[in-house]
């Protein structure tokens, strides 16, 4: 079984406000990489291919993915501001070329927060999808997967035929740290660089971000001294009790 893991570089979500955040692999995609590695470690996958779309600067995150244990990586060289639908159409072409049995990716990128690409890719390919997944088991000689999904109403379990798209939620696993030997090995692993023209895909984003502003901030209120004072304020001032 071959697993394709698309991933994105995002500003480190743990960086403090104001600080210039370094780039990292989107945390949900890192969970997808980790899961692919675990699937391979239990003997159910033979190859893990990572793919990302971006300028040469994302090679650093590609090296991290390779150091975690991804076998080889592809960078689709494109530095335009692409929207999720454009990304999905590019990935569709790549999926058709690579023919994986499973595409495993994060449910959302924590910079854009759109939560669209996996589902769009599944729609474009006509493949089944399991989104927001916290557990994956392969069934019937790896022709199907049973997935637990984190939904607003609690955990839902579905079974899907392969090939399929699976998007990860936080509870699927805890990604490993990159090891020094991993980093050494990563240097020797291949990164293929290809552009949209070579892939034969011509897409243009249909959404444009016109401006980005800081939303209004809440300001600090009042420090209170006691439970009695809190109850009084909630009753008399805030009128919520």
């Amino acid at each position, binding site marked *: 079984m071959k697993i394709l893991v698309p991933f994105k570089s995002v500003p480190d979500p743990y960086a403090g406000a104001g600080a210039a955040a370094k780039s990292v692999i989107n945390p949900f995609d890192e969970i997808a990489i980790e899961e692919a590695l675990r699937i391979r470690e239990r003997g159910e996958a033979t190859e893990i291919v990572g793919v990302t779309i971006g300028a040469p600067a994302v090679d650093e995150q590609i090296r991290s993915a390779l150091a975690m244990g991804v076998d080889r990586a592809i960078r689709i060289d494109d530095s335009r501001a692409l929207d999720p639908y454009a990304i999905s159409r590019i990935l569709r072409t790549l999926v058709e070329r690579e023919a994986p049995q499973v595409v495993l990716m994060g449910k959302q990128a*924590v910079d854009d927060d759109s939560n669209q690409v996996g*589902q769009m890719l599944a*729609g474009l390919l006509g493949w089944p999808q399991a989104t927001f997944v*916290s557990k994956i088991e392969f069934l019937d000689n790896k022709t199907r997967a049973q997935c637990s999904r984190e939904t607003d109403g*609690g955990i839902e379990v579905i079974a899907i035929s392969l090939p399929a798209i699976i998007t990860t939620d936080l*509870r699927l696993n805890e990604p490993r740290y990159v090891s020094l030997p991993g980093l050494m090995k990563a240097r020797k692993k291949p990164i293929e660089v290809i552009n949209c023209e070579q892939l034969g895909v011509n897409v243009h984003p249909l*959404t*444009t*971000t016109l401006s980005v502003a800081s939303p209004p901030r809440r300001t600090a209120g009042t420090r209170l001294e006691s439970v009695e004072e809190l109850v009084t304020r909630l009753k008399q001032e805030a009128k919520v009790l």
Partner: protein
Amino acid sequence: MAETLVLIELDRQRVKRPSLHAITLAQQLGGDYALLILGSGVAEAANSIISYGAAAVLVADDPALAEPLADRYASVIAQATRQQGAKRLLASSSTFSKDVLPRAAALLDAPMVTDVLALAKVDGAIAYQRPMNAGSKLATVKVDGELCVLTARATAFAMPSANGAPCLIATFAFDAASLPNEMQFVSRELRASDRPDLAEARVVVSGGRPLKDSETFERLVGGLADALGGAVGATRAAVDAGMAPNDYQVGQTGKVVAPELYIALGISGAIQHLAGIKDSRIIVAINKDADAPIFQMATYGLVGDLHQIVPQLIAAIQKT
């Protein structure tokens, strides 16, 4: 024919109220709108939404739609959108709409905007405001093309009024036999609770990492919520540690709430958590660390050990 199609979400054959808030976005966009519901045995649900000013309620009612499987649902939703000749397809943000609508967008060859908070006019054209980076940025987005798909943050749009003239209920006919059939429903966790739904509650009490285990969490967070008739939420740290189920998670990648009163117990105030609570009217923080970031945005702050404060607070509220 309707310019906008609003997908309404059901939970066990009943309309989920936050999903109705998307109707308010449809009204702000202007033009006529139809409501769409999918399911099996949903006549009663359809009847309950005829007075929201829609041109029609479209109903796709078939045993094949008993469970919200994304491949079938997206297919029917895309067919209905085409049949209506709609220019927009929208729904309130939820795990349901985020699962099925991007897939429907791909089938419709349309772009999508997630979590619309408000409309804006830029050079005479409609643009959409949406949060990014855990709500730390507010983007204004323009969409090109014939058709676009939107999800609306339910907390940013009011409940629409239900005093419109009753509209027609129309059956949306589709060929169930030709729907995709490669996804099967297996099971769903059933958790009975007398507490209000997080997304709709007037009061939400949430707990963080120091709640230690599920018993302590339930006794303190659950106990305070019950004293206030509220819902229970949690941080990622509390859910990861198994103190609370996943659907209690509030924040960037969990639920977004905007109650009258939000009480944060032992929550540091990470940006990912604040993304889900910012629009609450009153925020109370109880934390033993006087420098916890949550105090920078709480309406009322109390510094101290929650294990002592919360039982006192429950007792004080029960006395009032």
